[in-house]
């Protein structure tokens, strides 16, 4: 019956060099996997595979490490997968590997990798600039648009965090004249570690009593800083924002230690990447406005001047009121 038919025609298609989408092997490579962010992404990936019956799965390295990620991708190339959807730890080091991938005829879709050249397409929930500005808007609002602030990143060696932070600072200079960047410590590190974020924040607030805001980027920043604010008894006097997952930060938001956090839903991003990969594999032409039939990615536009970077409108603000409404 059915199965048999399928088999025969799929084999015919193979013969004619054509693959039906069920045969595509599509791998999503996140930065790492213990970060709830990418755990969430994996749920999205798996849901999508379920719904569509695609052979799509997520495979990450055991530590967040640029070289490991590059080697994993190389392994996937050697293995001959059909498409690789990657969230690069570090665009520069993945670049030559992606080049190999494309030379091997593999479709490459990236996320959070706007600067990448060797990709078919890069999907951004929004532009890094946009997101940086977006975080800054939240911070400014919390701070009442005046006061001294500084920026926190996982590491000064982290690509996208630093882009967001830079963009945030840019945005502040244009839009919030009464906010001033703490010149002595314009950027500090949290090492993607809530405890470091906590200690660093304490030090900052000790040394710079007039510091009023800390712009976080990594999802570990805001919670860590918030702990410091709470302990030092500065709730309501010092503010922080950053990226964060609803479930993880519900309490902090409700306690008012953090006014609001920003994010986009990694699950949707994952789905979007796969969806795009499929249409590229199917040889469909990709042109804006692009609808990937994934929430937040139904009206993708090319970033001006770019033929690869597609921007959606996936950013979300969470605050005490809506935090419980997301279901993740």
């Amino acid at each position, binding site marked *: 019956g059915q199965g048999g038919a399928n088999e025969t025609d799929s084999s015919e298609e193979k013969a004619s060099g054509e693959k039906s989408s069920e045969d595509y092997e599509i*791998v999503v490579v996140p930065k790492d*996997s213990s970060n709830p962010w990418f755990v969430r992404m994996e749920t999205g990936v798996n849901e999508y595979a379920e719904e569509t019956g695609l052979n799509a*799965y997520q*495979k*990450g*390295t*055991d*530590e967040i*490490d*640029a*070289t*490991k990620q*590059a*080697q*994993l991708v*190389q*392994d*996937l*190339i*050697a*293995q*001959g997968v059909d498409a690789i959807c990657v969230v690069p730890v*570090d*665009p*520069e*080091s*993945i*670049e*030559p*590997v992606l080049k190999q991938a494309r030379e*091997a005829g593999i479709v490459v879709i990236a996320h959070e990798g706007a600067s990448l050249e060797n990709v078919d397409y890069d999907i951004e929930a929004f532009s890094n600039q946009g997101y940086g500005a977006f975080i800054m808007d939240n911070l400014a609002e919390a701070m009442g648009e005046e006061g001294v602030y500084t920026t926190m990143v996982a*590491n*000064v*060696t982290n*690509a996208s965090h*630093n882009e967001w932070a830079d963009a945030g600072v840019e945005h502040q200079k244009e839009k919030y004249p009464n906010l001033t960047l703490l010149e002595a410590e314009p950027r500090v590190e949290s090492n993607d570690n809530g405890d470091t974020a906590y200690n660093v924040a304490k030090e900052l607030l000790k040394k710079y009593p007039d510091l009023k805001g800390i712009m976080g980027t990594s999802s570990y920043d805001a919670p860590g800083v918030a702990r410091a604010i709470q302990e030092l008894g500065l709730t309501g006097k010092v503010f922080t924002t950053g990226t964060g997952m609803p479930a993880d930060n519900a309490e902090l938001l409700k306690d008012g230690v953090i006014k609001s956090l920003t994010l986009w839903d990694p699950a949707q991003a994952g789905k979007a990447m796969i969806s795009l990969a499929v249409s590229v594999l199917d040889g469909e032409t990709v042109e804006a406005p692009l609808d990937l039939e994934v929430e937040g990615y139904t009206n993708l536009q090319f970033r001006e001047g770019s033929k690869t970077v597609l921007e959606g409108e996936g950013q979300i603000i969470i605050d005490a009121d809506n935090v419980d409404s997301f279901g993740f």
Partner: protein
Amino acid sequence: MKKTSFLKDKHVKRLVIIMVLWAVFMAITRFSKFYTVINFQTMFAQFPEFGLMSLGVMVCMITSGIDLSVVGVANTTAIASALLMRSIGGDTGTMAVFWIPILFLFAILIGTVAGALNGFLITTFDIPPILVTLGMGELFTGIGIVLTNGAAISDFPKDYAYVVNSRFAGIPVQFIIFALVAIVLAIILTKTTYGKKIMMIGTSQKAARFSGLKVNYLLIKTYIISGICAALGGMIMLANYNSARADYGTNYTLQSILIVVLGGVSPAGGRGKISGVILATILVRVLETGINRFPQISSYYISLIWGAVLLFVMVLDYFSENNIKLLKRK
């Protein structure tokens, strides 16, 4: 002759057996996805970078020392070379091929300086190598960050990466470099007096001094060798990722130690075969690549398997050495 002496070593033999077992397992389960030319070319382009670092750690461990600064040295070297290339060819420009050997000489120079520093501190102040190299590792990484503000450098002539990433008669150039270094090192360790001497120092530094060996000089030399290996490892990373950054390969520090002990080098010093370390290097890579062939197996199991293999091999060693006694105890 070579082969017999190679397989005489119990430990090495065991590594070979494990590797064969794994090879067979992969053949049964994932033949078509594992036994492909491209796959082996990939693996043999991947392991040289940490393979070289492991070789460096090995010589230090033979003298009963250790080198935790390899990754720091590697990255700083890569960064410095990248900056040099930029100043030669400009951000996007090109660079004549004859610069490449010069670049490697430059890297070797950096490695030498770094190693000499380590060796100097260890010998003149009697600081435990583990501390000196830990501190120096931080220091070198720090210098790398200062040089780059932590960002990656990728805007330099692509010619270098192009050459080192290419294949020679199907063999990845990275591997050829690794092989050359390994051969030279093997000769140094087995055929020269230096090799004999550091083995003796590893056995007893006191006796070495009383035998009139220039212990300090030999130790400094050893850490210089390690520094050079690390620097070359950095040059390969520079090619593989066509960019340099202070935090690439941070997990290589522990990994290289793991490889070295897995390769049968005694942390107490005085014992160690380069063949063992090379085998261990390849084994580690083959295991990881193999695991990556199983979508359903999380890569988290890789470290579990490494650890298990390491302990397994050690326990085998133990029983093979103590079997007589054990029989008696029964």
